[in-house]
C-alpha cells in the first residue's frame, strides 16, 4: 500500500486497439515520485500510445489508471493537468501564429485578466533562462518564426512553468530530437535537477546513451507490451538493444539462396544530406531494403528517385520506368470515388487506350488478371475501392504498380496495418516478380520484412549509415546502426 501512495501514476493491464491493430496489449506501467523513467522501444512498439494514455489524450480500451493511488474512472486531459501531469508531445504543439508568451498562456487558464501578457512573458522567460541559459528567445517572438530547435526549447520550458496547477510528472517524448548537443545537455541536466527536487519524469528517446545516463529505471517496450523493466544500472547498450529487438527465436523467412551475379544497373542514388560517398545502388532483379527509424529520409529518397525517373536530378540515376506503392494509401494511394478496376488501371492508361478513349474491355481484362494473380477478394472489380478491406485495398495498389510497365517498384512502407495473410501473399509476389527481373526498393518499418531483401541500407538523419548484405542482416545490427549515438 505504501508503494501505491508513492506512485505518481500507475496503469494496470492497459489495452488499446486501432481497428485490427493492437497498439497496446495489456501493459503494466508505473512512475514513482522523484523518479525518472526511461522508455525505449522500436517504432510502433506502443510508447507514444502509452504516453497519450498517461497524458489523458487517449482513452484506454481496457485496464485501469490510478494517479497517486486513486483510481481515475473518467480520466481526461483536463483531469491530468489538474493532477499535475503534463506532456511534451513529439509532434510540436505550439500555435505557429502566436507569440511565445501567448503560447504559454494557452497552457495556463489562470494567466488571464489584467496584465496577463506581462505575467506570461515573465513566466516563460524565467523558465527558459533556468533551463537553457543563453537561449536567445524573446517572449514576443512569433512561434512560427523560430527555428525548430528553439520551438522545442519553448515547448519544453512551457511544460515546466508553474502557475495554479501543480506539477508532478512531465512526459518528454523525444525532447532532444531537434536540439543540438549543447542544448540537449542543458535540458537533461535540468531534468536531473527537477527529479532530484522530487518531481517525476518519463523520458522517451531514441538516443540510448541519453536514457542510460539520465533515467533511474528503464522500461523497454516491444509489440505493444513491456518486455523488460529494471533499474538503469542493470542495463547496458547491448542488453537494451537485445531487449528491443528480440534477438531470440529470430529466423529468416526467405532463406533460399538467390542468384548473386550482378545484373544491369537500375538505380543509383545519393541522399541530398549524404556527406560521405555512400550511395544506394540497385540492380536488375534485386530487392533492396531501406531501414532505420521512421522519418529518417527513406521516404524522401524514394520520392526523389520517383521524380528523377521523369526529370533528371543531380545525384540520382534511374534507367527504367518507375512505379510507387504509397504507404499512406488513404491520402496518397487511393482514388476514393473510383472502382477497383479503375484504381488498378490508372498507372497503365497508355496501354489501355484504344484511339483517344480508354477501352473498358482492356481495363476489365487487366483488372481481372490481377484479381486472380494477387487474390483480390471481391465479387466484382467494378465495385468501389472502399468495398474492399484495408489489406485488399493495398493489394489493388500493388496490382497498379505491378500491372504497369514499371521495371522499378518503389514501396513506401506499404504494409502498414495489413494483416499477416495478405503480407505473406505479397512477399511471395514480390520475390516472384524480382526473379523475373524487376527491381524493388522497399522501405519498411517492420524488421521482419527486411528478410525478403538482398541488401539493406540503414538510414539515420537523412543519410545512409550502413549497407548490410543479406548474410550480415540481423535485427540487432539494424537497430545498432539506426540508434548510433554519433549524429
Amino acid at each position, binding site marked *: 500500500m505504501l508503494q501505491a501512495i508513492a506512485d505518481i501514476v500507475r496503469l494496470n493491464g492497459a489495452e488499446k486497439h486501432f481497428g485490427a491493430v493492437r497498439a497496446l496489449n495489456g501493459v503494466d506501467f508505473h512512475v514513482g515520485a522523484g523518479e525518472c523513467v526511461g522508455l525505449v522501444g522500436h517504432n510502433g512498439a506502443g510508447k507514444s500510445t502509452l504516453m497519450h494514455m498517461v497524458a489523458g489524450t487517449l482513452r484506454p480500451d481496457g485496464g485501469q489508471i490510478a494517479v497517486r493511488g486513486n483510481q481515475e474512472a473518467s480520466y481526461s486531459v483536463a483531469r491530468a493537468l489538474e493532477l499535475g501531469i503534463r506532456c511534451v508531445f513529439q509532434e510540436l504543439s*505550439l500555435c505557429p501564429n502566436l507569440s511565445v508568451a501567448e503560447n504559454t498562456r494557452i497552457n495556463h487558464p489562470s*494567466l488571464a485578466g489584467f496584465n496577463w501578457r506581462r505575467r506570461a512573458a515573465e513566466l516563460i522567460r524565467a523558465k527558459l533562462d533556468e533551463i537553457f541559459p543563453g537561449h536567445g528567445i524573446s517572449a514576443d517572438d512569433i512561434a512560427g518564426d523560430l527555428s525548430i530547435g528553439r520551438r522545442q526549447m519553448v515547448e519544453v520550458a512551457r511544460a515546466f512553468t508553474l502557475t495554479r496547477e501543480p506539477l508532478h510528472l512531465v512526459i518528454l517524448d523525444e525532447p532532444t530530437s531537434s536540439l543540438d548537443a549543447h542544448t540537449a545537455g542543458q535540458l537533461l541536466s535540468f531534468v536531473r535537477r527537477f527529479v532530484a527536487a522530487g518531481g517525476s519524469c518519463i523520458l522517451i528517446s531514441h538516443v540510448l546513451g541519453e536514457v542510460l545516463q539520465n533515467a533511474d529505471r528503464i522500461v523497454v517496450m516491444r509489440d505493444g507490451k513491456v518486455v523488460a523493466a529494471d533499474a538503469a544500472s542493470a542495463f547496458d547498450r547491448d542488453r537494451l538493444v537485445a531487449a528491443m529487438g528480440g534477438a531470440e527465436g529470430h529466423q529468416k523467412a526467405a532463406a533460399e539462396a538467390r542468384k548473386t551475379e550482378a545484373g544491369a544497373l537500375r538505380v543509383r542514388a545519393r541522399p541530398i544530406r549524404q556527406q560521405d560517398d555512400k550511395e544506394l545502388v540497385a540492380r536488375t532483379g534485386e530487392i533492396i531494403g531501406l531501414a532505420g527509424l521512421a522519418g529518417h529520409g527513406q521516404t524522401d529518397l524514394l520520392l526523389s528517385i520517383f521524380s528523377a525517373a521523369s526529370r533528371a536530378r543531380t545525384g540520382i540515376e534511374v534507367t527504367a520506368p518507375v512505379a510507387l506503392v504509397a504507404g499512406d494509401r488513404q491520402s496518397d494511394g487511393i482514388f476514393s470515388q473510383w472502382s477497383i478496376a479503375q484504381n488498378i488501371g490508372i498507372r497503365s492508361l497508355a496501354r489501355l487506350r484504344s484511339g483517344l478513349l480508354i477501352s473498358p474491355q482492356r481495363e476489365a481484362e487487366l483488372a481481372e488478371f490481377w484479381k486472380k494473380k494477387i487474390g483480390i477478394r471481391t465479387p466484382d472489380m467494378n465495385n468501389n475501392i472502399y468495398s474492399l478491406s484495408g489489406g485488399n485495398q493495398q493489394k489493388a495498389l500493388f496490382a497498379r504498380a505491378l500491372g504497369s510497365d514499371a521495371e522499378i517498384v518503389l514501396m513506401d512502407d506499404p504494409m502498414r496495418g495489413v494483416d499477416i495473410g495478405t503480407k505473406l501473399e505479397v512477399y511471395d509476389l514480390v520475390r516472384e516478380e524480382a526473379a523475373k527481373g524487376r527491381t524493388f526498393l522497399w522501405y519498411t518499418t517492420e524488421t521482419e520484412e527486411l528478410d525478403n531483401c538482398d541488401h539493406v541500407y540503414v538510414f539515420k538523419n537523412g543519410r545512409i549509415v550502413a549497407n548490410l548484405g543479406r548474410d550480415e542482416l540481423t535485427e540487432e545490427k539494424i537497430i545498432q546502426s539506426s540508434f548510433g549515438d554519433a549524429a
Partner: protein
Amino acid sequence: MTAIAPGTVPKASPRGSAARARMLRGLLPALSLALVLLAIAWLNPRAISYFGFNLMLNLAIPIALATIAQMFVIAGNELDLSIGTFVGFVGCVTATWLRDAPLIGILVLIGSIGVYALLGALIHLRNLPSIVVTLGMSFVWQGLAILILPKPGGKAPEWLLSIMSFKPPYVPFPILAALLIAAVVHFGLMRTSYGVILRGSGGNAAALRRAGWSLLKTKIVLFALTGLFGVLSGMALIGITTSADANIGNGYTLLSIAGVILGGGEFVGGRVSPIGAVIGALTLALAASPLLTFMHIPPDWQVAANGAILIIVLAARVLISRRER
C-alpha cells in the same frame, strides 16, 4: 501595421528577417490604402477634404463591419459565404420591424446571432465544411429577406439615421468609426487572454485541445461574433441608405473576404489582423467607385476594374509572402 508584429524589433538573425518580412507584409494594407488615396488626390484634389471623405467613405463603415465579421470565421480556419445575404436580411429587419416593433426587431436580430452560434456548433460537431453550410444558409437568409421585404422599401429608425449622419468636427465620421472599430476589435482579439485562445484555435487546434480547451466553445464564439458584426454591418448600411432591399448586401460576401485577405489575413492558420482588415475594407470602398469614377471609367466597366485592382493588390501580397520563405 504593428497589429501583426506587436513590439517586434527586427534583429540580425533569420528570425529578424522573418520579422522584417512580416512587418513589410503588415505594412502592405496601409501602403495600398495610401496608394489609392494618392491616386484620388492626383485625379481630383478637391476630394481630399472633410466633405469629400464623408462622401467617398460613406459605405466604408458597413463594409468594414462585414469584413470584421468575416475575419472572425477566418481566424478559426472557416469561411462564411452567407455574410452578404445575412447583411441584406438584417437590413430588411432593420428597415421594417426594428422601426415599427422595436422589441420584435431586437429579438429577431439577437436570434439571428444565435443562429450563427448554432451554425458554429453544427460545423464543429458534425465536422462539416463551413463553405457548404454557409452557402446553404446564404439562400435561407436571402429567402427570409425577400419574405420580410418583397419590394425595396422600408425606412430606417430615426435614432439609427441620426447616428449615421453624425458630423464630428475636423475628422469625418467614417474615419472616426473605422478607427473605433479597429481599436475595439484589435483589443478584443489580439490583446485579451481569450482572444489568444480564439486565434490559437486557427493556428493549431490539436494543441489547444491537448491543453484542455473546448474547441466547440471557440467555434461557437467565433461564429457568434461573426453574427454580431454582421448585424452591426446591416444596421449601419440601412442607417446610410435609409431604406432597404433584399439584395442590398449581396456583394458583401466577396468584398469581406477580399478585405480580410487584403488586410494581411490568411485563409488558414489563424493569422488575421483586425486593423489590417479595416484598412483593407477602406481601400476596397475607395477603389470600388470613387477612384474609378475619377478615372472616368464608365459604370459598366467599374465592376471589372474593381476586380482587376483586387487581383493586383493580392498579387503584390503573394509576392512579398513568397520572399518571406
